[in-house]
């Protein structure tokens, strides 16, 4: 893929399934192993959910811009919003030892993706960039009781 696939969706949770379907089709036609594809779809979905919840604070009439690159066994996604800029230093995955509802989305993103960066150096909103290299990925990213080193 020499150019990105671009998708713009409203910040309405009912359109999250649309971005998932586009990604699933992209991964299928590029023959990304289904085990990896499922996890990448989850990460993008969680990131968009966080934008709806925190950046746009539930306003369904804003915009989320997604760009997907898939080349040489590397997947990169850039997700741009124009909502409230949050303190990205507070975006920390929570400890899983305490089983409680909520707060898992950021954990999933950091557990699955190799690189995650938030850029707020702009007048409005945030640019989230996530990258995953999966050439040598032969086992699930997380097995019971094992995380990343």
């Amino acid at each position, binding site marked *: 893929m020499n150019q990105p696939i671009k998708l713009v969706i409203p910040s309405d949770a009912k359109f999250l399934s649309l971005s998932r379907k586009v990604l699933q089709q992209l991964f299928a036609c590029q023959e990304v192993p289904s085990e990896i594809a499922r996890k990448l779809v989850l990460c993008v979905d969680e990131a968009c959910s966080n934008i709806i919840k925190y950046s746009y604070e539930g306003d369904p009439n804003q915009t989320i811009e997604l760009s997907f690159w898939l080349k040489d066994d590397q997947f990169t996604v850039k997700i741009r919003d124009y909502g409230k800029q949050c303190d990205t230093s507070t975006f920390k995955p929570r400890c899983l030892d305490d089983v409680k509802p909520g707060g898992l*989305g950021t954990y999933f993103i950091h557990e699955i993706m190799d690189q995650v960066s938030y850029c707020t150096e702009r007048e409005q909103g945030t640019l989230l960039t996530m990258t995953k290299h999966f050439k040598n990925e032969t086992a699930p990213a997380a097995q019971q009781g094992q995380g990343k080193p």
Partner: protein
Amino acid sequence: MSIELRSEEGQGGVVTVHIEGEIDMSTSPKVREFLTPLFEKNRKAIVVDLSGVPYIDSSGIATLVEGLQWSHSSKNKFRLVGLTPTVKDVFEIARLLSVFEVFDSREEAL
């Protein structure tokens, strides 16, 4: 995106909840609305059949964790059956497969 939920009363205070559809930020409130009244009744066990759920996100997991908490506080059972590969992945990543009581089939869970 739609989600369908129905419950089936069994013997001995066991209720099975069947969910059909993807559970994400837009549908998890409906799942929570459906399950919460069941927690308020004195059930012996709630079995959630996820075989019709091709996708679940963290908000869906959070809803099911509420069921787990009900189970712990009431000393009743909250069991999951029929996890599809995608749903199982999410439980694995969250390290929740050993926290929930998970069964392959409804028959095993009852």
